[in-house]
């Protein structure tokens, strides 16, 4: 008689990386990674960081509200947006600025959003992309519905959505994985594992070895990628997009990175995490890493860097200008979009509100 129990299913998580922590190549470059593309990705990451610095500054000087910095996660976000086709749909979380810019979403719209203005989500480009999602993990389900619409209409499009490590604790995250697996949906799930959910470290968030393995609960592949290696993220994204586009279903990508900034401008991370940890994380950050590689390859130098920074500053300055010139919103704006047609009660309330418009005290 047998005395052991047969294994009926097994699973593994692989870790994907091309650039080592010092910008050295540890695997042969993937095909997409031509010098042009790498330079482009580099520039886009620097642009995101320039934007980010400015956004924090706008908040500090009272010109914008609370803002969540993307510092440290530029590679994930840029690679994600860059790998997508125009006709795909992005369903972002609130720290996906890089992907949004790749999609054509205007910087000034992101400023508007965090400046407390709904019009910031009325994107002029990427009009099917979802706005920033505040209620954690809900966006993962929207992505499944969008993917289902693509599948129903037999369109070769993919829904791409992102979340933080903390968000992977929520029911909606898992319900989305399960549905995507059950329906074999064209969706790519990205997890920005930046090690922290506000003050809660990854180790308290979940007892799993990896976040990637949560994909097995949905019945499809999950993998880990070095989220500070833009080449690796870009590659696993393309692979996952292709899988999805060809009808082979979803993938979960855990991009391992680090939140180098505070959670938001309303947070002070020094309350809960050590300087040492932060310093160590800076050693691995994505922009420096790619710069080292490019320089070593003779694809980058100080002059180009200087020009790039000036360029980025100019682009961001223009966006700030556009943001600051946003026409004032009015009472109609807050009443007219609850329903397509103003209801009777809202007509009455709007007329009443207009009576008091001039007198308002708060704000």
């Amino acid at each position: 008689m047998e005395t052991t129990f047969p294994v009926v299913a097994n699973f593994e998580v692989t870790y994907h990386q091309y650039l080592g922590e010092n910008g050295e190549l540890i695997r042969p470059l993937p095909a997409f990674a031509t010098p042009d593309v790498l330079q482009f990705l580099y520039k886009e990451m620097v642009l995101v960081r320039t934007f980010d610095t400015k956004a924090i500054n706008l908040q500090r000087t009272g010109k914008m509200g609370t803002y969540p910095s993307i510092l440290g996660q530029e590679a994930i976000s840029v690679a994600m947006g860059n790998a997508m086709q125009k006709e795909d749909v992005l369903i972002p979380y609130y720290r996906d600025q890089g992907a949004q810019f790749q999609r054509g979403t205007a910087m000034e719209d992101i400023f508007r959003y965090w400046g407390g203005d709904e019009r910031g989500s009325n994107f002029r480009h990427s009009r099917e992309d979802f706005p920033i999602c505040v209620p954690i993990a809900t966006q993962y389900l929207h992505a499944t519905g969008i993917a289902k619409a693509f599948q129903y209409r037999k369109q070769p499009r993919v829904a791409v959505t992102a979340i933080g490590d903390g968000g992977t604790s929520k029911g909606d995250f898992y319900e989305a994985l399960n549905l995507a697996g059950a329906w074999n949906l064209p969706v790519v799930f990205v997890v920005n594992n930046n090690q922290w959910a506000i003050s809660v470290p990854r180790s308290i968030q979940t007892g799993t070895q990896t976040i990637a393995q949560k994909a097995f609960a949905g019945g499809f592949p999950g993998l880990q990628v070095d989220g500070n290696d833009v080449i690796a993220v870009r590659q696993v994204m393309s692979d996952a997009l292709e899988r999805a586009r060809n009808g082979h279903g979803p993938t979960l990508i855990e991009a391992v990175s680090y939140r180098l900034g505070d959670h938001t401008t309303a947070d002070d991370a020094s309350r809960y995490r050590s300087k040492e940890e932060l310093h160590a994380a800076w050693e691995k950050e994505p922009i420096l890493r790619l710069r080292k590689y490019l320089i070593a390859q003779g694809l980058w130098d100080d002059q180009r860097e200087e020009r790039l920074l000036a360029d980025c500053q100019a682009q961001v300055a223009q966006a700030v200008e556009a943001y600051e010139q946003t026409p004032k919103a009015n009472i109609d704006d807050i009443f007219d979009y609850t329903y397509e047609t103003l209801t009777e009660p809202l007509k009455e309330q709007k007329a009443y509100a207009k009576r008091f418009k001039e007198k308002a005290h708060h704000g």
Partner: protein
Amino acid sequence: MAEITLIEAITQALAYEMRVDENVVVLGEDIGTNGGVFRATLGLLQQFGPERVMDTPLAESMIAGAAIGMASQGLKPVAEFQFVGFIYPALDQLFSHAARMRNRTRGRLTCPMVARAPYGGGIHAPEHHSESPEALFSHIPGFKVVIPSSPARAYGLLLAAIRDPDPVIYLEPSRIYRLVKQEVPDDGHALPLGKCFVSREGHDVTLVSWGASLHETNKAANMLAKENIHAEVIDVATISPLDIDTILASVAKTGRCVVVHEAARNVGVGAEIAAQIMEKGILTLLAPVQRVTGYDITMPYPKMEHLYLPTEERIIDAVYTALEYK
């Protein structure tokens, strides 16, 4: 033309709209082969196939969240929640997203979905199968909340709900799913959302109700008629946004009003109706608006649910209280 029940009218409306608009899809638990636990989607899988009639995994937040995603792509998902008592896990998706998508994006993305669910008590069902949460949805800006009371209204209002460009919560009083039959032409004619229906004319007192309770309300009106008390009966139908004008016009005539609903009393829809009648019609009121409602307790299990539901006796008692005022 054959007479059909309320639930058959729902099936008829779903099939009609699926025929004329290929963006209409239905999804939910057990709605495919099984045709729904109440058979609202009976035959749809056969007619429209599994790509449009989707049996989902068992997860209500997922049903709502996926429907929101579909709706953003121009589909018109009609999501069935097996009982409205199981819609609570979906409230985050519904409140935080379905109700807000248009406003959040200033009209760029919208959410033309319908959330259907059997609703209300009196069917001797286990706990959680007899809830009346219309007040919750009515309080959340962005929804329309609709409750039909007859086969014809179920048909016309469901067509309107599906065609509406915004999310509609469509609650189906399961107690009257098969109570009465009516001829309901399958002509695709929608009824207006946002309008009350005057179900019966009268001049002594206005009775306001919706859904299954309208039946006890009508019975009460019949009994009162024998006492020579002529009640006007209003079927609210769209609970939110509320058509207060129709109610006010009636109260202007009768001077007295009784609102009847199954849901708990505290901060229920009856309170809103009473408050608005006072605000806008106090000079026509001869007595305070009376509320005949469920109690502020969890809907009792079947053995005791009859003690909870508004009855003709309670309605008539309230009418007399109103009539005897001063």
